[in-house]
């Protein structure tokens, strides 16, 4: 059974068709990366899956049409980590992670013991226990990213949507975050759909890549199939070499031709 199935997904924003008849499936436990140039519709596709923009076509989460799911129930199946999360600076890390329990609470209700247990587990898994009482605005970029991931984990959703999870991080933190995601995927059996700018990292961590250009799916498959010089040149307009580095997958190297 596919954890997530997109069937002719189209999104129109301000008269422009940003995602155009995208059909794809993500299997249970799989990590799929959406790649493509700026403006290809990667983020919009994620937002459509999370129910944040209206769309045509169909998004199914474990066989259920998301349009028939109440917002709250969708949030129990799909957790989104935005590219630039809004950080309420004065809030403690623990209170922030506890927000992930929102889909399980009644409208005016407050958290129960089980919600605190789930938040504590998320804090522990992301090594945030020593930070639990700290204010968010005292954390570094990498620590904040982990706090947002912890909030998504506390949401206990089987599908994790990551929008550029490594965008503002240095190379070490990038690896750290992606390793954490991969470990969580294994230990919690999560399905991951992420957008990625860094093609080499996308190839290293994702099981499959979906290449979008101007809203349309133009290539799909393994790193070997998608990270080719021809495809990248055509859709990114970039001069690159793709090097098959044993043990590291396919490394995409920008090339500067002497002019």
């Amino acid at each position, binding site marked *: 059974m596919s954890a997530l199935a997109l069937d002719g997904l189209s999104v129109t924003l301000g008269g422009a068709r940003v995602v155009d008849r995208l059909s794809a499936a993500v299997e249970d436990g799989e990590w799929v990366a959406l790649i493509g140039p700026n403006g290809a519709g990667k983020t919009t596709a994620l*937002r459509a899956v*999370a*129910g*944040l923009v209206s769309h045509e076509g169909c998004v199914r989460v474990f066989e259920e049409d998301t349009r028939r799911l109440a*917002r*709250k*129930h*969708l*949030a*129990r199946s799909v*957790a*989104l980590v*935005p590219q630039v*999360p*809004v*950080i*309420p*600076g*004065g*809030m403690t890390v623990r*209170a*922030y992670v506890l*927000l*992930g329990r*929102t*889909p399980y*609470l009644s*409208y*005016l*209700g*407050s*958290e129960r013991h089980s919600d605190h247990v789930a938040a504590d587990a998320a804090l522990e898994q992301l090594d945030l226990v020593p930070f639990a009482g700290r204010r968010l605005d005292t954390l570094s970029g990498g620590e904040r990213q982990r706090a947002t991931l912890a909030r998504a984990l506390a*949401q206990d959703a089987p599908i994790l949507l990551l929008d550029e999870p490594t965008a503002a991080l240095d190379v070490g933190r990038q690896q750290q975050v992606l390793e954490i995601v991969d470990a969580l995927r294994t230990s919690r059996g999560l399905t991951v759909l992420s957008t990625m700018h860094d093609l080499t990292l996308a190839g290293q961590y994702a099981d499959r890549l979906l290449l979008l250009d101007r809203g349309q799916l133009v290539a799909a498959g393994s790193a070997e199939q998608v990270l080719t010089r021809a495809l990248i040149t055509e859709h990114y307009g970039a001069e690159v070499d793709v090097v098959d580095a044993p043990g590291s997958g396919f490394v995409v190297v920008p090339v500067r031709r002497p002019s």
Partner: protein
Amino acid sequence: MRVWFPASLLFLVAALLTGVLVGPVHLGVVNVIHASFAHVFGLRSPLTGADDAILWQLRLPRVILGAIVGGTLAAAGAAYQGVFRNPLADPYLLGAAAGAGLGATMVAAYAPASSLRGDLLPIAAFVGAAVAVIAAYALGRSAGAAAGPTALILAGVTIASFFTALQTFVQQQNVDTVQEVYSWLLGRLSTSGWHEVGIIVPYATAAWLIILGHRRLLDVLSVGEEEAAALGVNVARVRLLVVAAATIATAAAVAVSGLIAFVGIIVPHTIRLLAGGSYRHLLPLSVIVGAGFLVLADVIARTVMSPAELPIGVVTAFFGAPFFAVVLRTTRARV
């Protein structure tokens, strides 16, 4: 954190006692407490007839009214700041002040001078405030849900300017009413017994319950509309309910006490700086501290130039602003 609730309650009790004790006639702490309980439980008051009337008909209703109005404005301000994620939001943001001003001016200008006029003014202020906010809400919503809180705030500004223009026009046509309208606009807590308290209590109670009930959801909204929606929250519904509750309470407060500025901004921000930004603590603390703050402001308003009274809005701004500046400076490192 734990220390702030008892501390704020202590502040409120001290403010209430100051409010009933300060005045031209000396009543005495023990007598005041004893007599208040006697009235509540239908027992014999230890005070003489005149003193008892001063306490029960003059000071106590005024102090209680100040506490309710202060708590309401502070909670409404904090609630507005939460739903609009805008630190400068106050209870008058969506045009409540301009609407109330127009309503009051219309009564002052066009209603026949009679005993009824005094009763009509608060009703007109209430209706004006409610109409202005509903108009702003409808206008803001017509911009589409995607426009979000910014559209609502702009709609509030639009409606407020329009209503203020109407008010100024009516006032220019009826210059003789300027004094009456002006003194009302600046805010005052003069009461005629328990009448005003009776007017505001149902609105204030309902608003407090609704706003405090949403304290956890306002924390969720602090991560922004989109993320709150991704967490399963119906943001539009939360905003509508909280704004409706805060607006009705503000309109009721304006109707009984005129426009009292600054309470809705200064009290929540002072609490934020001292006790942290979570709405779970901020909202109940705002009610308690706002109540005490306005009672103390009223004590100053009626003693500084005694027997004349200062408009209480002047006091809240004059003493509130420097106090806020001190809080801002001393907690600079943590902001």
